């Protein structure tokens, strides 16, 4: 079913909206959630919660790109689950590694006087990624949006893991400067 038709089902409050979404994007959202939580039960719960949230958000929202809309909900839910599970102790997995990597981009965050809204950060990240070259975009988005492993990215890029790490290091450096210049950290 086309995405626009699925969105229309939500607007009509049709019971089939969720089953059609699950049929088309269930696996996609599960992968996103699993890459973050590293637990199939948690991932499944995130996916179910995603459908519930999507049901509550539409209407009023009419997402232009359904996978991005659903993926963002799933990511937030999964990051929350990961955070609650690892509040006391940092566990392993790609999420913990990605968080450590991203912490390099933050300078003196604890002293930031102004607290920015999440939307401001999102807007800045969107613009930042748009400024990267295509290879950097693929690697950065794979790593920090989809939480793909370095190994998988290297496999897809047909290069060594060292090269992927090097690209990510370089881009994180750019991000750090960008966030500073934008006054976001």
């Amino acid at each position: 079913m086309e995405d626009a038709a699925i969105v229309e089902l939500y607007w009509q409050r049709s019971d089939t909206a969720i089953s059609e979404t699950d049929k088309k994007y269930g696996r996609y959202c599960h992968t996103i959630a699993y890459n973050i939580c590293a637990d199939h039960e948690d991932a499944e719960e995130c996916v179910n919660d995603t459908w519930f949230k999507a049901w509550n958000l539409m209407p009023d929202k009419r997402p232009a790109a359904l996978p991005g809309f659903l993926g963002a909900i799933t990511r937030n839910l999964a990051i929350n689950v990961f955070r609650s599970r690892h509040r006391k102790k940092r566990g392993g997995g790609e999420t913990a590694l990605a968080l450590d990597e991203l912490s390099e981009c933050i300078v003196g965050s604890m002293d930031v006087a102004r607290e920015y809204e999440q939307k401001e950060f999102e807007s800045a990240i969107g613009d930042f990624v748009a400024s990267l070259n295509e290879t950097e975009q693929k690697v950065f988005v794979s790593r920090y949006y989809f939480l793909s492993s370095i190994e998988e990215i290297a496999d897809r890029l047909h290069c060594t893991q060292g090269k992927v790490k090097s690209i990510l290091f370089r881009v994180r450096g750019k991000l750090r400067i960008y966030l500073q210049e934008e006054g976001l950290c």
Partner: protein
Amino acid sequence: MLDSYTLLKAMNGIHDEHISLAMVFLGYDEAGRRRRRRLVWRTVLIAAAVAGLLGAAAYAISGIIHSTGTYPMDNTGEYRSLGELPGIEKTVGYDITPPESFANGYVFEKISVKGEAAFDENNDVLVGFYGVNIEYAKAGAQNIVLSLAPVLELPTAGEHPEPTETRKLDGVEVRYFRDHYKIVPEDYEKTEADLMAEAAGHFYITYGPGTAEEHDYEFAAFVLNGVEYVLMDANGDGEEALFQMASEVIAAQH
């Protein structure tokens, strides 16, 4: 306040076009399903029975393997010392006894543990398992890779390729392959010449990003104690070198 969790969540601001670019790069189709690479001969070699290696789940699985690929698993990583082997063996569930070096000068460099899975025709996971890649380096040469994976108790789709040559080494059947690989972009359409070369054998097309490139590879494959070993060489060292290295891997098991 900006912390790494906030930053991770802020990735939701990445524009749809860039998410789509990464989706294609990672092998998702437009419906968010994972596209798998074409079944290549190495996958076909995963055929005999060692369900015990994979635990109880292996007994319950059924289906036909159409492809394999990376799969998220816990405790994957890269190690620089063979001293890490006890922990790695515990993770992957099978014994690993690689030589530290080969007589022709290749020396252990690193070992990586990867999550992998076998997929059916609908891209559903049949079984997840751990693969291990051990790399050996020599000055002026590309690394030789010794790849290990448990042999799965599942039939595979497609025909089993014929080895270029087979020898018995210390009672173990070692199959040697000399293959040509053409790595092409996702949107590549096979030419008439490609189709003819595929039909002739020992020619494979795999899909990846970037422009087309071609490589010759040599492989020596054998099964020991329920684990499939594959030596991969991109240096053109020749069949005698590959059989010799295989015999050294086999000797290391005793």
